[in-house]
């Protein structure tokens, strides 16, 4: 399993506990997911479907004993919908929302596992 799969699970229930996201995400990436899930829970929404990806890796670098890598993703959110949890009614995307845009992802290798530490959606960079 992976970071995105777990994040999609968490957003689908608006509940971090129904995923294993904390295993694959930390720092900013985890705070973002926790914040999103909390906001969705308050608004009574969940997501359906999943985003799609086109990824490009940068070479792995090293900070001291920790390996680091970045991924540039052309994130496609068109099939990752937000719905009202009670009725299933879709909450539409805002009119000006780009549905495919660049998202930068930073990861570090902690022990044997790569952990996503930062996810930066760049909605102003369509792709």
């Amino acid at each position, binding site marked *: *399993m*992976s*970071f*995105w*799969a777990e994040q*999609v699970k968490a957003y*689908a229930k608006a509940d971090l506990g129904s995923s294993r996201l*904390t295993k694959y995400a*930390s*720092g*900013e990436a*985890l*705070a*973002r997911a926790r*914040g*999103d899930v*909390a906001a*969705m829970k*308050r*608004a009574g*929404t969940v997501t*359906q*479907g*999943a985003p*799609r*990806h*086109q*990824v490009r890796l940068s070479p792995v670098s090293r*900070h*001291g*004993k*920790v390996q*680091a*890598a970045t*991924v540039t*993703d052309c994130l496609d*959110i068109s*099939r990752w*919908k937000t719905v009202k949890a009670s009725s299933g009614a879709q*909450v*539409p*995307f*805002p*009119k*000006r*929302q780009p*549905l495919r845009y660049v*998202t930068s*992802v930073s*990861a*570090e290798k*902690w022990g*044997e*596992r*790569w952990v996503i*530490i930062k996810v930066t*959606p*760049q*909605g*102003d960079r369509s792709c």
Partner: protein
Amino acid sequence: MLTRRAAAYAIAAGVLVLPVQASVAQADDSPVVGSEEGCEGKGLSSFVTTCVTAPGAPAGGGKSERSAPASRHGSKSGRPATTCHVEKLKPQPPADSVMWEGHKPSDGGAIYTRECFTGDRIGSVGPFWSAKAPGAQTVDPAVVARQAVDRMRLSGPDIQSPRADGRYVVGMPMWLHVRQAPTTFGPNSASAAAGGVQVTARAKVVRISWGMGDGSRVVCDGPGAAYRPRDGQRPSPDCGHVYRRTSAGQDDGKYTLTATSTWQVDWNGAGQQGQFTETRTSQVHVPVGEVQALG
């Protein structure tokens, strides 16, 4: 190769392995796009980027509140309340992680995550280092950044040209120029701290928009060149205007010039950074007359 259907990057031990599973159900219908921009109360995630409250995004203008280590800032200034949630990171990152920002686990501090909300929308998020455990709720660094900007006491452009006591003539180039002081043009910087969150903000004017009073607007990226007598009747090389009518029909017989500076503020602190803009305005009243033969 990678396909658009590839759903996720799993990063496995040792090697970055891409992409892996795509097991999540997908609806086949095309995305539904709303007819309006409203994001409030809709419960959209931060991946719907048009609904994200950028850290420090202006949400009402005016002055920042100075109430210190409160977890909730009232909206007396018209700015929606900001709340933050803080948790200690489990597990803590290894010693060489960038998240330590130069600190060491052996120093006794720890890494925490903070997510802040403006109203019901997610604002700034991020990890930060703290020597001792902060409260479960803490101050939004973006709010502290606005307090830092308040300390700079930024004011409107210091208009050097045109001058209220100058003589200006229809058809002649008018040079627009402001003095560059820390409080009127920048650069300027200040720090503020609240609730254990320390933020440093740097501000500078990136643009001045001149409303000329005759219906035209001139936008300049800099302070504008200063006029010297030897410039004669040349137009300003970078920031000027030519009036086509006299100010005789205006209130007091003068044009009201309104210069609005846009300050770009970059801030960082508590492991986060952000940017926002503020504006300040000055006015000058200038008479513009007909050409007269001078004896």
